[in-house]
């Protein structure tokens, strides 16, 4: 199964946060969601993921765009 990809590079806070939250709802526990986002969304998205018990398990970047693999918690 390929990892589902969520692109929030066109969104701003708080939609970045909302979309990631909704994206994770469609993923089973311990499943992975890839999220494409811009640098300015990094802090709020990652800190809210951590607060909600998810983990960022891989990070890659390409020309200012970051790709995060998010493993869904509990």
């Amino acid at each position: 199964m390929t990892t589902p990809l969520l692109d929030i590079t066109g969104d701003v806070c708080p939609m970045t946060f909302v979309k990631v939250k909704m994206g994770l709802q469609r993923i089973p526990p311990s499943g992975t969601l890839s999220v494409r986002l811009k640098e300015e969304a990094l802090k709020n998205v990652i800190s809210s993921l951590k607060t909600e018990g998810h983990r960022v398990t891989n990070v890659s970047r390409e020309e200012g765009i970051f790709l995060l693999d998010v493993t869904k918690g509990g």
Partner: protein
Amino acid sequence: MSEADYKELKKGGMMRQAEAGLFSVRLHVVGGRLATPQLRAIQDAADRFGRGEIHLTTRQGVEIPHVPQDALAAVKEFLAPSGVGVGVCGPTVRTVTACQGRRVCPSGVIDSPELAVEVDRELYGKPVPHKFKVGISGCVSNCMKAEENDVGIKGWIEPRWEESACDFCGICEAVCPTKAILLSAGDGKLVIDPALCIGCGDCIASCPTGSTREKIRGYRVFAGGKFGRRPSLGKRILEVLRTKEEAMAAILAVLDFFREHGKPRERFGDTLQGTGFPALETFVKERTGLP
């Protein structure tokens, strides 16, 4: 009434108005916090002795304007039972301002009202060469504008880097608002420049692996700020302090320095123009043993 009498009244928080015979009565407020019975008493006092008006000052204070001179003693007496004291003016330590701090604000790093109460208890109204303002921000978002004060404090998160957990993803470097983090994945090194770091903790909040961590969650001291006719911003002194007691000791030592070096009617920032900031830092460090 002589000018000297007016001056004495002013020191005690009774501010002469433009209109002869009327005074604006300044009240003692700490960190902008009043209990509702106090507010009711202030409301009643304004109705009874003023013109039913209250003025909110720029530094979280409250004044009751339009009080006739012959009612000044009565207004003071009327407010006393509710625990509302009369304020100060003149060459004294003024209202200590604070945000709501970490007990209320999700961004809060320190309990700013708690420190404000302590500073107020130790220093409010104490004589100094010129007016002296203390403002306490719970975090570096700095709602209380620490650098505008003679002494300002900010809640501050000093990060440290734990090499073993780091996978050099570069997120901390990307989120750092001041580019204080320099990552060289090739050498397996990450350097945080303490001179550039503004203590926001964004690197810690966004680190996926927990390798940027809190080293100190504490107090950063700024000195020499003022506004008025010739504004200048306070500069930071000392290392990040770890406890409320350390912050208090630093503030007391800064005041001692001002008392030793400040000329009458000279704001602290101007005193520091003469002495330089290093002299202040050396003095505070020697007096307190703080880093």
